């Protein structure tokens, strides 16, 4: 049971990264369907960062590796986020179309990049990356075994898990209690109004789309280095893509609240874990478990739209382009 919860959290935080990234993006009024591709980009960048740190040295520094990996993940994901932002904000392209193009590009790029550039056919690289994954990204505080189930579930997570929760809390605080959050929520609701009172709409949109992309990119890194212990396979991008779509579902499920997303992600993580690792149910029942998060999300979407409470709705201008001089 302890293992189950620990695993649920370790998967959940991947969703959490993607979800918080998408929430940040959507709060600025942009539905970014490129999140799956952007998460992949994070994985690609992270793998490159790890490779750069662990190759050519016998005793790579754990802290340096993690920091460089995070940096590269943020850079790669942020770059694709910037492309999305440039196309949808500056060039006013359709958000759905641009997002899907980002996903196609990101998944393709990552598959190619990880296979050709990062690992090639070099088993040494694979081994070293796996080493980094196991001992750097999943290192935990010594002595937690003594704390019983609590330590087992909450204190034996990898470093990225805590980063995810910290980011979710930070996102919640920023959105709810700061001027920046107030401004971006205003933009997501009604960009013309925000513009009229002097909020820099374009700047905020770029900022939040790229920050969102960077956060989501960490999800990709978290999957490869954290959850998979650095085991890099050729289908990694495909799997992350699936996780990316679930992350978008999670946004709806948690009604655009990062704090709620922490709990939601653990729930989704548990469902995902059950469907991949559980024994004792028959082979054909597994897909039905996989279904549950999506069905539950649809139900949440339906219920919130029927109840129609103003505060649980998607940002009012979600998906709509903004052009100041439109008349």
């Amino acid at each position: 049971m302890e293992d189950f919860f620990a695993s649920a959290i370790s998967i959940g935080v991947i969703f959490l990264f993607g979800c918080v990234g998408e929430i940040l993006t959507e709060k600025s009024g942009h539905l970014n369907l490129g999140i799956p591709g952007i998460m992949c980009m994070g994985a690609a960048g992270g793998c490159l960062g790890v490779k750069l740190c662990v190759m050519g040295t016998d005793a790579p520094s754990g802290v340096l590796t993690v920091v460089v990996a995070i940096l590269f993940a943020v850079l790669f994901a942020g770059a694709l986020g910037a492309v999305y932002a440039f196309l949808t904000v500056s060039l006013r392209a359709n958000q759905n179309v641009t997002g899907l193009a980002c996903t196609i590009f990101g998944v393709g790029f990552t598959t190619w990049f990880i296979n050709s550039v990062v690992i090639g056919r070099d088993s040494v690289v694979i081994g070293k990356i796996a080493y980094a994954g196991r001992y750097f990204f999943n290192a935990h505080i010594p002595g937690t075994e003594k704390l019983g189930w609590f330590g087992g579930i909450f204190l034996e997570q990898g470093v990225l898990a805590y980063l995810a929760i910290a980011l979710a809390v930070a996102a919640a605080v920023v959105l709810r209690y700061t001027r920046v959050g107030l401004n971006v929520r205003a933009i997501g609701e009604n960009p013309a109004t925000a513009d009229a009172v002097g909020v820099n709409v374009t700047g905020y949109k770029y900022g939040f789309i790229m920050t969102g992309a960077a956060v989501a990119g960490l999800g990709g890194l978290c999957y490869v280095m954290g959850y998979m212990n650095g085991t890099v396979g050729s289908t990694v991008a495909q799997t992350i893509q699936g996780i990316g779509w679930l992350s978008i579902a999670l946004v709806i499920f948690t009604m655009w609240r990062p704090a709620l997303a922490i709990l939601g992600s653990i729930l989704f993580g548990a469902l995902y874990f059950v469907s991949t690792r559980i024994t004792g149910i028959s082979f054909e029942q597994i897909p039905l478990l996989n279904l549950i998060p999506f069905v539950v999300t649809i139900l949440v979407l339906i219920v919130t739209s029927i109840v129609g409470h103003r505060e649980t709705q998607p940002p009012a201008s979600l998906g709509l382009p903004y052009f100041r001089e439109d008349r």
Partner: protein
Amino acid sequence: MAEPALELKHVSKYFGSVAANKDISLTLEKGEILALLGENGSGKTTLMNMISGIYYPDEGRIFVDGQEAVISSPQDAFRLKIGMVHQHFKLIDIFTAAQNVVLGAGGRYGVRRINEQVGSIARKYGFELDPQKKIYDMSVSEKQTVEIVKVLYRGADILILDEPTAVLTPQETEKLFSVMRAMKEDGKSIIIITHKLHEVMEISDRVAVLRKGEYIGCVPTAEASEASLTEMMVGQKVELNIERPQTEFDRPLLEIRDLCVRSDEGSRAIDGLSFFIRGGEILGVAGVAGCGQRELCEAIAGLRKVESGGIYHEGESIVGLSPRAISEKGIAMSFIPEDRLGMGLAPSLSVTDNMMLKNYPTHGYGIEPVPVEPGDDSPRAKGLRIRNRLGAFLNRHCPFVDRRQARREAEQVIEELGVVTPSAETPVRRLSGGNVQKVLLGREILTDPNVLITAYPVRGLDINSSYLIYDILNRRKREGTGILFIGEDLDVMLALCDKIMVLCHGRLMGVVHAAKTSKEELGLMMAGALDLMEEKGKVMGVAKDSLIGEDETWDA
């Protein structure tokens, strides 16, 4: 002499090929209230949007306190201490009043802190405002209060108010004016946009007049009169000699009894309203903006749910019928909303496609009826009647739509009403406002209605086009159509309508004969100060020869 607070020099703004503002020079002195006067669509709001950084001028320069200023964004305007209260409130619905006030302004942010700040400003100027109330729970005047507090919070020295009184009751207007005077005492400069002359005379120090995007002139209010301002506004002294043909009033065509309708916000927009329209009369509806005109139109056209009460057409209830069924009974509605496009037209579709908006189901194969004399009983006539009926049946059940007839209609409207458009296939979006209106009204009249409901048909039209519209309405009146005319301009209504009913917050204040009433009486009724229903104690709005109820079999 001190530098003027704000100076515009040769400012122009174009939208496509249309000049919204052309070569405008304007000065606002410190500590004065300048009224910016002009008809709808004369470019007042566009000009003010350039000062507040929403639009950027294509030509010209702006000086603030004697320094040339570039106002390319609202931040620039904010930095120059220019604040604008827009006609359409720019508020975030899901935020509280306080959050809206501080949005975009500097300073530390904290929920308790901003609530206190906003509360204290509201108290200082005597506004009643709960800083924690969400905008979606607020009334119109509360929202306006938030807008004004927003500008005050920023410490603006130059305030621009875009038609602030349009949505206010007289008491609220008076309150607003006293606040404005207090701000003037404080050394602030205020531009108020309005087209209500008596307000201009009451509040302003000077009046600047715009006409069709051009600057006409600026006069001290003390030296101006309502007549001279009107002349500046419209260009020439207008004798409102709108024709009012005398017609035989027919039996009641449309009767409304104790009608109650709710607004989108859930409040009662129409409250126990009764009235009737006879064939061959024009019934005017007067009232301040937003006192239920829109909801009344929508209820009659079947677009809005009727909460209680009845709507009868020639004695038959039409409550609950579909909009199409109502339109097929001969009730046509043309509502010109403020953006002129919102209701009744599809902006991306062509004039032709918009022309068949209501009758496209009958445009199947394009089989047209052959005219037959009514009394003709010859075999040929019988045959033709069967043919016509068959043709109509086929047209209605054809899966395809025939655009030839619609194109002919479009061309007819374009020619008769003088619509300026490259062709009948041009998207309506690319037409200018007045032409859009002509298309809309032209279509409604083409359906040959027996009841025509028309709201703000001359909104934003030039004088000649307006007279053209009045002529069209009078022509329909002579042909026995009952017309409900919802208007803004009392002078026009007094000249054009046979009777005028006055609404105040969705309630009927009385029905008066246009020839026997005065502007003052109407104004008092609109403001709710005079209620003929109570005063005279008689039942208004119910026809003596009503077709409803026991007299349902009444036959003309």
